[in-house]
């Protein structure tokens, strides 16, 4: 395909230097941060109404999530799958698609990695691990890519289809790990055969955090380059803004939809790969741990910007890491984090209505007071 335009400075019209440029960019940072704070405020009120102390809560989250080197390592380990799960939402979102079934890609990616690992018993890790990763990404990519294909060729709503396919993926995983792929030795928790030690992905040297974090961050950077620095990403943003205009321009909307959904799914599959090879050691029902759903919130909080996903995912991973301590110390149910996520999600969506309302962020309107 040939795209005749360059990819430079499309998000904001005009130069992005100086005070004016800063003000324009500030809106995209200040409003989500404000919404995050508003979500925290509503949640604090929720705790206060039941006689719980919000300060205790946030202090515990800080201690368990970010207070010590150990808690940082715990948080970062949890952030790894969240980064990839959020990409599974953010990439299709650039085309205006709301895909919420990333859990399906994670689960099937994990099963594919576990199955490939069991098949490749005795193969050197240098060959086996890339093959397993490829299988996982292929499984996830095909699964979410199918959602994109249904959307493009049949006009099926991608939000509903992807969530249905997540349920189907979980059923498929249960069928496979309890049936054809079950290791007879796994009694209490049906699983695929455990991976041999050589095929377990280890930690980043010097840290107690597995390699999934590095891959997740690299994936976010690559996704950012793809969206912000290539003609493909530019075309996707055009198509996301206005499909008709994109078609008139001769953009390959179908291939963009298939490519972006499949790539998102491949990242989801990668999350499954790391869950199996670095965390669980075999594929089992633990794969359906809800990372795909937290990923939706992260992508929306980051406004589908892959670079912003990194800090947001780490923040939310910290909250999840602190869940256990909060439960024990404050005697709160484990769903507390889910309630917090719900309030933050609502706040972030409501903040959409505020964009363009504040003069501070629009330099061209500064003088007209």
């Amino acid at each position, binding site marked *: 395909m040939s795209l005749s335009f360059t990819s430079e400075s499309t998000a904001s019209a005009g130069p992005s230097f100086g005070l004016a440029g800063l003000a324009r960019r500030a809106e995209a940072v200040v409003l989500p941060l404000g919404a995050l704070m508003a979500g925290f405020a509503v949640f604090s009120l929720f705790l206060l109404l039941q006689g719980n102390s919000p300060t205790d809560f946030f202090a515990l989250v800080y201690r368990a999530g970010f207070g010590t080197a150990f808690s940082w390592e715990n948080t970062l380990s949890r952030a790894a799958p969240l980064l990839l799960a959020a990409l599974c939402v953010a990439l299709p979102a650039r085309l205006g698609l*709301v895909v*919420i079934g990333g859990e399906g890609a994670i689960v099937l990616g994990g099963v594919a990695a576990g199955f490939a690992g069991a098949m490749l018993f005795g193969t050197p890790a240098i060959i086996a691990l890339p093959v397993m990763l490829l299988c996982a990404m292929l499984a996830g990519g095909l699964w979410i890519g199918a959602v994109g294909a*249904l959307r*493009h*060729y*049949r*006009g*099926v*709503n991608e*939000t*509903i*289809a992807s*969530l*249905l*396919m997540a*349920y*189907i993926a979980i*059923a*498929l995983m*249960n*069928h496979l790990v*309890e*049936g054809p792929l079950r290791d007879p030795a796994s009694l209490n928790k049906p699983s695929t055969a455990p991976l041999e030690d050589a095929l377990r992905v280890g930690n980043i040297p010097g840290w107690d955090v597995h390699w999934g974090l590095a891959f997740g961050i690299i994936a976010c950077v690559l996704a950012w380059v793809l969206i912000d620095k290539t003609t493909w990403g530019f075309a996707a943003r055009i198509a996301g803004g206005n499909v008709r205009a994109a078609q008139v321009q001769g953009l390959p909307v179908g291939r963009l939809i298939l490519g972006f959904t499949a790539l998102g799914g491949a990242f989801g599959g990668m999350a499954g790969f790391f869950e199996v090879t670095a965390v669980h050691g075999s594929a089992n029902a633990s794969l359906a741990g809800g990372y795909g*759903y937290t990923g*939706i*919130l992260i992508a*929306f909080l980051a406004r589908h910007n892959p670079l912003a996903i990194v800090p947001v995912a780490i923040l939310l991973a910290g909250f999840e890491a602190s869940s256990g301590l909060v439960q024990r110390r404050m005697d709160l*149910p*484990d*769903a*507390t*984090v*889910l*309630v*917090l*996520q*719900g*309030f933050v*999600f*609502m706040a972030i*969506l*409501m903040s*959409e*209505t505020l*964009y363009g309302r504040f003069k501070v962020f629009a330099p061209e309107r500064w003088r007209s007071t």
Partner: protein
Amino acid sequence: MESDLGYWIIPLAIIGGAIRVSTPFLFVSLGEALTERSGRINLGLEGTLVFGAMSGYALAYLTGSPWLGVLAAALCGALFGLVHGIICSLPKVNDIAVGIAMMILGMGLAFYFGKPFVQPVAPDLPAISFGWWSDIPQIRAALEVNVLFLIGAALAVVLWWMLRATRVGLTLRVVGDSTDAARAMGLRPALIRTCATAVGGAFAGVGGAYLSLYYPGSWNEGISSGQGLMAVALVIFARWNPLACFGAALLFGGAGALGPVLQSVGVSEGYYLFFAAPYVLTLGVLIATSSPTRAMTGAPGELSITK
């Protein structure tokens, strides 16, 4: 397995199962049909369903009356719908995304407040036995019909009539088909949509109360497995027609009953795959009824998912 019935037990159990399993589908889809007819989609009904299940169970346990539980579930559902409706009335806010957030919030709040009610046993909703003429226990079991199912069936007819022949129905359809036309008629689209979403939420809450107070009849965090979401797809399949919603709910109920029925007659092969039957059916129906080129027949003009 009873030998005198042979394999007849399977269709019989599926019919009985369809009636039992379909009720939440029926209520959620009727509520969603009403909301979507006003031009808005509420994907958060899954969360409303779960919260309805929790609040219904909790109140039935605390008061001893299952009907007070149903009422509480309806009120909570209406409140959730109201919140969704008001937020979506803000400019530039995406109703699909708000639905996802409401789903997470509804489930979070339900699990949060529902923790103390996992153990206690709440009274069940009453059922009417239509199988008194038979001696065969399986037939009697299959024809044990809950009162809420009958109410839901009646509601489908009432809603169908309301949308077709009353002023309220016409108002709703005008708002759903064209915001501009509604404004020109002096209607207030945002207000009407918010009301329709609140009523739809109340229906979904009742569907949830059925789950916890009759079948399966207990409260736990796994009470719903996507019924609220499937019901949204079911509305598209039913072409926003309440009577068709009733038929579609029965069909989906039958698919949902397939897994447990086959398990009860000793079919264990592919057990989990049969549990996926309702999801596969929903997806298949969506694929079959969608089209990339033409707008869906019967779709409200202002609905975001079909535009």
